[in-house]
């Protein structure tokens, strides 16, 4: 049976029976088994995406509590609320949590949930890999926090530079746990990147040619390629070089054994700087989606926006040495990275001006998501300006490893990623739950977070310029840092109040929020064509793109695909550039094997923290898991 694109008004496929029968068949084909066992077999993108989002948010709360503990410790001089050792563990766990367990997985979770809906398809390209990636992320996070709870939390910073992280200066298992946690989370990130690339390039709605791809999907396509190029570097740095130096005494980065610690820094920051853009680029996609819906027009300068996303991604790979300006590298070499660091302001500037032009020329509706977008623009521009300052070698030397840098990267990461993310939560919450969030509470949340954020992080610029270095657990009163630190601590508690209000809004709106309907914002992209919340099959009939903003096209221009089977998990594969239908693909159903494989591999990885020989049973366990995963089933559901 060939898929057919049908005009509106002919949406009932005669071969599918009545609409009700059709829906029931789809429901049966796409639902997972019930009960506890069934929970571990889920492979639909909405289920896995939601688990990513909830888990990453739980880690965000843990990271936030750690931030409050740090700020309490630093609130005034000579404070001994935390010991030096506990403080080291907390700031390391905070950085590690926010970078590896919150920011990247949260962005990926949002994409896993949203991208197939925006593309007008029923699932991601590799559903079981998607489930496997989630469990690896979960187990990695649990490993880190198991270490923290048993006083084996890492204490060498989220980057774990040798020689501090080497066997001489960090005996015990703290660094090993950190290094192996990286393995878990990077495997997870690579799984998501692979499936998103395949989904975006090969499973778009018919007629969604590349020039019609939503900007959020462009941002996730580009971010996924960045993940594939950047993430292996950190695995080389942590899992291969650092861990092997520690467990089997190789000589990669341990200077006591003739290794080169600068090699570690190069490889780590080759991942570490792009990581910032891996977090930030999806947020740019959120902002574009929110601005479009709230101005009810397409973003001004679509090609320029795509260029800016791609330009940010590729220049982002040419900045890593600006984290190493103080290491004594040749100055002419450092200057290449100064130039690239300043050039990236051009691509960021293009986007800011495109959004401003869109807002200027559109009919703006000031709902909560727009507040977060405007807050993002203000904070991110400030963070970007201090970034351009830090690109200059002399200034970098002056403020290197001070609170000025802490202020800069929080302005960029919270302003550039967390504010858009909160905007995105408010914007897509109706799609995910079927209910609207409370607008008044949302606006109060925004102002509390905005004021608290600036109160916390702006004084850190001053502290940095006054010489307060990072990663000190206390300071003497004669340094004159008390007032600014006290202000920052008060700000941190205000942020916490904003966070609590957000959680209260999420929970209360789940029950009492106004019903959202399919498209409460009158937005243009295809996720708003699905029910809220979407059923496991997403769309009764797969939509056909009628432009960049199908939902804004006249009803008579919107067509759907018919001729797809509804008794199995069938999706439509389309061509890369013009999204012409090519063939129908049957996706695998629910399965316990991704969970079991992750459990077997994860258990083995935990073992490798205690001995290299654990890699052998881990390889066998992975093999067993994959055999079960790919074991061919009787082709009952493949009958023509």
């Amino acid at each position, binding site marked *: 049976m060939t898929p057919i694109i049908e005009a509106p008004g002919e949406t009932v496929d005669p071969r599918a029976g009545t609409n009700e029968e059709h829906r029931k068949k789809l429901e049966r084909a796409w639902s997972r088994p019930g009960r506890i066992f069934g929970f571990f077999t889920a492979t639909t993108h909405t289920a896995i995406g939601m688990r990513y989002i909830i888990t990453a948010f739980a880690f965000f709360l843990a990271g936030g509590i750690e931030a409050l503990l740090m700020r309490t410790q630093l609130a005034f001089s000579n404070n001994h609320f935390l010991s030096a050792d506990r403080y080291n563990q907390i700031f390391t766990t905070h950085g590690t949590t926010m970078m590896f367990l919150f920011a990247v997985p949260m962005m990926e979770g949002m994409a896993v949930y949203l991208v197939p809906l925006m593309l007008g398809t029923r699932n991601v390209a590799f559903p079981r890999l998607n489930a496997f990636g989630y469990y690896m992320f979960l187990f990695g996070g649990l490993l880190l926090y198991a270490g923290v709870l048993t006083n084996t939390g890492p204490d060498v910073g989220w980057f774990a530079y040798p020689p501090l992280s080497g066997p001489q200066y960090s005996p015990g298992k703290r660094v090993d746990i950190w290094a192996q946690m990286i393995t878990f989370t990077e495997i997870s990130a690579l799984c998501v990147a692979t499936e998103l690339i395949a989904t975006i390039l090969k499973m778009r709605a018919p007629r969604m040619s590349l*020039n*019609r791809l939503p900007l959020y999907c462009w941002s996730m396509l580009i971010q996924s390629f960045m993940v594939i190029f950047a993430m292996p570097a950190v695995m080389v740095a942590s899992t291969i070089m650092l861990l092997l130096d520690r467990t089997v005494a190789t000589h990669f980065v341990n200077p006591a054994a003739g290794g080169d610690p600068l090699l570690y820094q190069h490889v780590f920051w080759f991942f570490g700087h792009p990581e910032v853009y891996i977090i930030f680029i999806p947020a740019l996609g959120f902002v574009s989606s929110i601005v479009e819906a709230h101005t009810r027009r397409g973003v001004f300068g679509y090609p320029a926006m795509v260029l800016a996303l791609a*330009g940010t991604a590729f220049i982002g790979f040419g900045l890593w040495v600006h984290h190493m300006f103080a290491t004594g590298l040749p100055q*002419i070499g450092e200057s290449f990275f100064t130039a690239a660091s300043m050039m990236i302001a051009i691509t960021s500037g293009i986007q800011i001006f495109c959004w401003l032009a869109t807002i200027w020329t559109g009919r703006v509706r000031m709902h909560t998501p727009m507040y977060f977008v405007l807050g993002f623009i203000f904070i991110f521009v400030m963070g970007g300006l201090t970034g351009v300052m830090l690109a200059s070698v002399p200034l970098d030397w002056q403020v290197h490893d001070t609170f000025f840098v802490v202020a800069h990267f929080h302005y960029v990461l919270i302003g550039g990623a967390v504010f858009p993310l909160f905007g995105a939560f408010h914007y897509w919450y109706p799609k995910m739950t079927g209910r609207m969030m409370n607008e008044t509470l949302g606006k109060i949340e925004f102002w509390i977070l905005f004021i608290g954020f600036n109160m916390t992080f702006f004084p850190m610029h001053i502290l940095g310029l006054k010489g307060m270095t990072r990663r000190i657990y206390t300071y003497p009163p004669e340094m004159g840092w008390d007032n600014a630190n006290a202000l920052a601590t008060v700000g941190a508690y205000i942020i916490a109040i904003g966070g609590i209000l957000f959680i209260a809004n999420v929970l209360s709106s789940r029950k009492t929020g106004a019903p959202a309907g399919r498209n409460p914002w009158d937005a243009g992209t295809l996720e708003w064509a699905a029910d809220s919340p979407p059923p496991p099959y997403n769309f009764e009939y797969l939509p056909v793109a009628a432009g960049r903003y199908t939902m804004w096209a006249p009803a008579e221009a919107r067509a759907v695909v018919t001729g797809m089977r509804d008794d199995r998990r069938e999706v439509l594969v389309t061509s890369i*550039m013009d999204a012409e239908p090519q063939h129908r693909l049957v996706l695998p159903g629910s399965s316990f094997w991704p969970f079991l494989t992750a459990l077997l591999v994860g258990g083995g990885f935990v073992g490798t923290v205690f001995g290299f020989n654990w890699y052998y049973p881990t390889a066998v366990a992975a093999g067993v898991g994959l055999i079960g995963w790919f074991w061919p089933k009787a082709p009952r559901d493949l009958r023509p």
Partner: protein
Amino acid sequence: MNRDTVLWGALLLPPVIWFLSMETNFALAPWACAFGWKFAMFVVSGISFALNAGLALAAWSQWKSLGQNWPGDEGGAIPRAGIMAILGMMIAGMACLVTLAQAVPEIMMGACQ
């Protein structure tokens, strides 16, 4: 060479060319100091600039052959090729610009600074 090959080339090659030239020049920095000779760096930057300019030109010629229209969100291969050509021009242009910016210290600074 067919149109799509040129368009993909103009989209994907400029970042690769720029990255290779930056890496090569970074690796040449200690060598330039040791021998007091920056010419190799100029050659690398020059080749990178020329290749990227060539790719920008190739994308522009494709855009010209497509009618030089600013593409909207019309369906079909021609508007899609138009936007790919414009993106190719802009990405190759951006790679030229970054290469030029990185050539400034090569010109202004001594090899051993």
